[in-house]
């Protein structure tokens, strides 16, 4: 089993504020890594650094063994291999669901229109959204929009899928329809890194759980270890607070 992603000693700061500090991470193929931690612990920044939306200050990032933190790298090429789903969906409001999904396959991967549409329709059918193909995003519920956003990423056949708190902007009743897609992807052996506040969900899909605090991974291990038998006092404190908020 190869290593898809390797982060080596990453550092990232915004001005004087250090957001990621000597952070290292290995993501093997077909595994899901969950990043947990309080807001501001650096989860989103980490994901944005991985797909080069942010430039790291130090350290190295490797994708399939090739360094992508090299400034001479073609970022568009790198991003073709990475899928990213955002907390706020970020669908293109002027395009229909089908157009949202087929844009990158046609313009980036050079697929024919028919080919792209066929694949998009197959994905929409698989995730039960066939009837929404010609709708505009604002006619969809939040859960449907986020499912479309996931499909949009999948349409590019990503090597690695980055999920940035994809249920945080959703009504509690809509969370599950989105999470069930991720469970599906997990059973398809998709390699994923996900920042999440849903501990129950992390337990279900994550092979490794990393607890972030002030830009560092304080504790890592299987979901069982980190979520149910945390060793670090900060992890214990965090999980206690999550528990009080009723999310475990």
């Amino acid at each position, binding site marked *: 089993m190869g290593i898809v992603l390797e982060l080596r000693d990453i550092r990232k700061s915004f001005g004087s504020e250090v957001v990621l500090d000597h952070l290292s991470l290995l993501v093997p193929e077909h595994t899901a890594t969950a990043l947990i931690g309080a807001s501001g612990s650096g989860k989103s920044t980490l994901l*944005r650094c991985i*797909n080069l*939306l942010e430039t790291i200050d130090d350290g190295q990032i490797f994708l399939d063994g090739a360094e992508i933190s090299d400034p001479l790298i073609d*970022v*568009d*090429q790198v*991003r*073709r291999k*990475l*899928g*990213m789903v*955002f907390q*706020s969906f*970020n*669908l*293109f*409001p*002027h395009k229909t669901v089908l157009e949202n999904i087929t*844009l*990158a396959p046609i*313009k*980036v*991967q050079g697929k024919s229109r028919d080919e792209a549409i066929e694949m998009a329709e197959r994905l929409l059918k698989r995730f039960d959204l066939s009837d929404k193909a010609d709708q505009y995003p*604002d006619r969809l519920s939040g859960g449907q929009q986020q499912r479309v*956003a996931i499909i*949009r*990423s999948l349409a*590019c056949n990503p090597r690695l899928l980055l999920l940035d708190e994809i249920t945080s902007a959703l009504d509690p009743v809509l969370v599950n329809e989105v999470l069930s897609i991720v469970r599906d992807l997990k059973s398809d052996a998709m390699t994923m890194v996900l920042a999440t506040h849903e501990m129950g969900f992390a337990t279900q899909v994550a092979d490794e759980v990393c607890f972030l605090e002030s830009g560092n991974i304080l504790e890592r291990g299987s979901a069982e270890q980190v979520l149910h038998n945390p060793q670090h006092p900060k992890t214990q404190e965090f999980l206690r607070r999550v528990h009080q908020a009723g999310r475990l």
Partner: protein
Amino acid sequence: MTESKNSAWSPSSREIERRNSRRAMSRKHTGIAVASSLIVLGTLAIVLVTSPGWESVKSTFFDVDYGREVLPKVIKGLWINIQLTFMGGAAIGVIALALALMRTTKSPALTPFRFLATAYVDIFRGAPLILIILLVGFGVPALGLKGISGNVIFLGTLAVVLTYSAYVAEVIRSGILSIHPSQRAAARSLGLSSGQTMRFVVLPQAIRRVVPPLLNDFVSLLKDTGLVSILGVTDAVRAAQINASRTFNYTPYVVAAILFLLITIPMTRYTDRAIRQRTQAQNSEGAT
């Protein structure tokens, strides 16, 4: 279950009471509106008609027979204004879009263009249009270039296009800047290049957003084409001027004004409606 309840619904006595009092209230409001309009507009009319110079104003500005006589000439001039508006409008759209893109680009190779575009916008947005018309109208012929030197219609349009391109470029640029960075992030993370992101994601949304203000500029453009008359173009304003100065009767100006209004008022109404629809669409869109 709720449906059967709905179909059996008839307003309660309290609701009927409320409706009656709302109706009474609206009747009262209509009455007040009519009365106040009669008082205000009536007073204005009386002041106008009883003013000492009214008779001479009536004959020199509102001479119906003379107005009818000059109408065809003024309409012929107005046709020039309309042509200038549409041809100029097309050129403005193209140039303004190029300027806006130049000003928003981050590509290092285009740095000189970004600088030039900024300077261009500063100059042409900051100088009065009438000065630009005079400078272009008399300055360009002095260059002695073949073909265009003597053509006042071309020179006048050129001046208007130069100035309006700067205005419209800023409107388009503000539209581009108003698109949330998350849209760009989403497009880039799908692997679209920055050019593709601009073309397929940012620009289509930006243009949609600025259509109402652009319609406003289009109305202004039509009016401002009247300024090219100072170069001797026989547009509606010039046609009116020629006739007025021949007879010392100013009715042609009033005719020209009415003709402009006949076009601009419907356009303004349409623009207002477009703005209203745009606002509603944005509100339903929420954060994006």
